[in-house]
């Protein structure tokens, strides 16, 4: 057995669910689990990292690492990898993970499998499955010539069990290894939404042109609030300027993998399906019984969104408050 290094991400001192998935998967593999986390909040998540299966956690508590910088993060990850000598690295296919680890892989002269949806760890070996061609095929990724195997997993693909608060991790503090940066993060412009990002959301309520106009997204926001969901949209709606393009789901938008995807007034074009087709349960609400979205859906409702959605919101309110 070897060591699995998990890149633990947090938002404002709270460990992300996607990182908990990875820690637990690594712990289940029987390998020694070591985690790494950066920034002034790093200390806030070390306990949770231990509860979820790591025996050691490396932190670089430098505020200079509060925001992601590809160069400084690469330098620090590589320094810790050299110390820990893992045989496997797991990270989320988040915007940070996807940007960082290809660069880390190139520096470590090793392979990276990005955007995976299944993970099999057996000893030092790992294989991963990833969707290709917009989810129209799945491939198993095998590592070759890779002293360290780096796998980037989509969120919500692995089970999460209750944390074991009796388990703790030893904390190793590291100095910031980065020098001479050619990249400068000048400003972070906060997003409009306080909700979870689409790529991490467990429930998504998404709207299409069937909603007729921007103001009607209020109806979807109300439903989403009751469900603790994030709101998404089609490109047609984004192009019409009803919502920002950060909300677009699809081939040229975000790839999402929630447990529940509610598609309202969405026809189900192939480019939209490309982004949401791997959702576990899909509900389609459309007034056209022949809309292609119904071929992908788990449950279908033929009807007027303006009639159905408010009723659904009421029903969910009742069901979730009992």
């Amino acid at each position, binding site marked *: 057995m070897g060591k699995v290094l998990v890149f633990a991400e947090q938002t404002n001192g709270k460990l992300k669910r996607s990182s908990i998935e990875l820690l637990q998967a690594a712990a289940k593999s029987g390998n020694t689990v070591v985690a790494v986390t950066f920034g002034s909040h790093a200390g806030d998540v070390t306990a949770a990292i231990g509860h979820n299966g790591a025996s050691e956690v490396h932190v670089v508590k430098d505020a200079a690492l509060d925001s*992601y910088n*590809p*160069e400084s993060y*690469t330098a620090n990850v590589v320094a810790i990898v050299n110390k820990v000598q893992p045989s496997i690295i797991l990270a989320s296919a*988040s*915007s940070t993970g*996807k*940007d960082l680890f*290809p*660069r880390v*892989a190139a520096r470590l002269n090793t*392979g*990276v*499998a*990005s*955007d995976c949806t299944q993970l099999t760890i057996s000893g030092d070996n790992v294989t991963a499955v*990833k*969707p*290709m061609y*917009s989810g*129209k*095929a799945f*491939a*198993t*990724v*095998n*590592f*070759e*010539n*890779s002293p360290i195997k780096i796998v980037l997993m989509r969120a919500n693909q692995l089970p999460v069990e209750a944390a074991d608060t009796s388990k703790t991790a030893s904390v190793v503090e590291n100095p910031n290894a980065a020098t001479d940066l050619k*990249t*400068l*993060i*000048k400003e*972070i*412009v906060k*997003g409009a939404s*306080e*909700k979870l990002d689409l790529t991490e959301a467990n429930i998504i309520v998404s709207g299409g042109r069937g909603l007729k106009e921007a103001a009607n997204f209020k109806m979807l926001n109300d439903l989403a609030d009751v469900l603790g969901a994030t709101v998404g949209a089609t490109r047609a709606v984004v192009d019409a300027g009803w919502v920002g393009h*950060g*909300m*677009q789901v699809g*081939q040229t*938008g975000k790839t999402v993998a929630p*447990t*529940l995807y509610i598609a309202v007034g969405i026809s189900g074009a192939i480019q939209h399906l*490309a982004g949401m087709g791997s959702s576990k349960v899909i*509900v389609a609400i459309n007034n056209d019984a022949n809309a292609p979205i*119904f071929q*992908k*859906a*788990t*449950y*279908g*409702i033929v009807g007027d969104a303006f009639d*159905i959605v408010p*009723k*659904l919101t009421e*029903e969910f309110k009742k*069901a979730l408050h009992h």
Partner: protein
Amino acid sequence: MKIFVCIKQVPDTETKIKISPDQTGIDTAGIKWVMNPYDEYAVEEANKLRDANPGSQVWVLSAGPKARVVESLRTALAMGADEAIVINGEGLDNFSTAKALAEVIKAEGGMKIIFTGKLAIDDNASSVSQMMAEFLNVPHTTVVSKFAFNGENVTVERDVEGGAKEVVQMMTPAVVGANKGLNMPRYASLPGIMKAKKKVIKEIEFSSLNIPATDIKVKYSGMTLPADKPAVKMLSGDSSAQAAELVKLLRDEAKVL
């Protein structure tokens, strides 16, 4: 100033995918190939930058089987790129592709900015831009929806989670991975198409780049098509009944609430 653009040729999204008999790839017969959609934004931004900086040139670069990837290079030339290079070879992964692109860009010399797409819609990996930047020892930013160049540094906006944006400044040379929203790619003009037909595309054999076989780090196997979804369950009754039934099914049958 030399501006490079890396473009990948990918199957059109509407194309039906069939798996090759050895399950390591797809059956390429009957596939309609197009320029990776994000690479169109990359080509457009490079053209705009060239137009704003007299004396500059846009070089487009693609790695893959020559016979077909030159099509996407011709499209880029028709959109206004000045020169094109094809790296001919088959069966590489993201690491060796990035290595090959970096080697060729280095050999051409004088690069200032290298545009790529944020990801290729076939492998969906978003890894080549960052790996190439590392091999070139230059900074990178991906998922870029706004770009500015002041003659020395570039300032870009990167889209991240929750609709947030990061404003990033990089010293050049730098790699910039284009996202949707960066610009509106121009169509190839008829004179552009005529001119592109006559252009000589420089050919480089992958085997001449001295990239060792150990630079292939990942291989695909066991490629499969998605399992058939069970048929949709259509709900009946009036809207109230449908809403109530849906909530019940999501809770008791699908168990997602």
